[in-house]
């Protein structure tokens, strides 16, 4: 492994593992697999990735795409599985906070939309590109996700405001500030 890339893996693995936990709703095994696959993808394109300005955001979006592809595939597998198999996969997650518990209960795409929106400050169009869907779908998924969160949290306030592209164009340099 390239020494620069090894340093990159060592420096970023905790952040990516945490992000993987967010995406997967608290599945440590899938989060670890996703982190490994993400680093593998980044390693294959390391000559390009090492010059990327926002490496953290680039890595998280790579992970999100991988996870979404995997989620769609796994969903098909679950639907094909026997009812007994499905029942055993419904283990109660670890509840560390009300918000975390509520996030864990969201459907995968709604959770991904909210994570991309509030972690990355992505616009509808940017989220749609990552999840390979239409901006209208992003908007509806965000709305449903927040509705579910409000219900689970027992609060009542307005819909989320996802910036359109003109809003997104005005944002610069804020994505990696929280790494």
């Amino acid at each position, binding site marked *: 492994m390239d020494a620069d890339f090894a340093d990159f893996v060592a420096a970023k693995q905790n952040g990516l593992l945490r992000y993987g936990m*967010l995406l997967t709703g608290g599945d440590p095994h899938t989060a670890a697999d996703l982190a490994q696959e993400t680093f593998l993808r980044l390693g294959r394109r390391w000559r390009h990735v090492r010059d990327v300005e926002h490496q953290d955001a680039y890595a998280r979006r790579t992970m999100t795409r991988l996870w979404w592809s995997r989620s769609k595939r796994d969903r098909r597998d679950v639907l094909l599985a026997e009812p007994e198999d499905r029942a055993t996969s419904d283990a109660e997650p670890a509840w560390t906070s009300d918000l975390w518990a509520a996030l864990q209960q969201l459907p995968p795409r709604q959770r991904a939309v909210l994570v991309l929106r509030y972690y990355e400050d992505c616009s509808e169009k940017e989220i749609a590109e990552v999840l390979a869907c239409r901006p209208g779908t992003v908007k509806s998924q965000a709305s449903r996700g927040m509705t579910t969160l409000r219900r689970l949290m027992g609060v009542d306030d307005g819909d989320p405001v996802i910036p359109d592209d003109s809003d997104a164009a005005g944002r610069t340099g804020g994505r990696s500030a929280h790494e």
Partner: protein
Amino acid sequence: MSDLEKQLRAFVREGDIPVPHVPDLAARVAGAQRRHRQRRVAGVAAAVCVVAGAGVVGTMLRGGDSTPQPAAPTPSCAGVTLRSAGVSTGLGEAGPTLVLTLGGGTGGDARCPIGPGTRIDIGAGVEALTTTLAPGTPRVRLHPGQDALLELTWATWCGDGPPRVRVTFSTGDATTLDLPADTALPDCGDPSAPAPLGFVALRTIDVHPGGTAGSG
């Protein structure tokens, strides 16, 4: 932005989320990279086998030429020399490649078979890398007045400085050349698991008296 949205933003960025402990993640990534490289080399070899097999089948279907052929020249690589060796850095996933130019000499009518069975050694000792072109690799017959270009993937080098390259032909003849001192060598990577050399291409080039060459 509502209070819930503010809470959500703060939580996804800074919230207390259990992070799985994966102490061997870097090792797992390195291992997966090695397996990926090996699969890629195997894929190239398989593609070469398919192409070579199709060529053989095509020749058989054409039925060949019934005209008696003159006796084939004796295979010999005694006059073949390694004229140059260099490293092409490469772009993207291709990685660096070793490009060897073998000169067929200027006299006689011997034909030097290059292909399956031809062995390439880079360096000596514990750091040495060796490969023997596998069955199914394209075969060329290098004759006087021709050059042969042989290209191999060369992803890792953990030795000191530019090594010596040795080509040993199936006839038993061999030729060697030291890589120039300013050669841009591949990175070492994992010293315990050097990447194997992989066949990329082999072709002959006619060398014209004026010094120009044409692909053959």
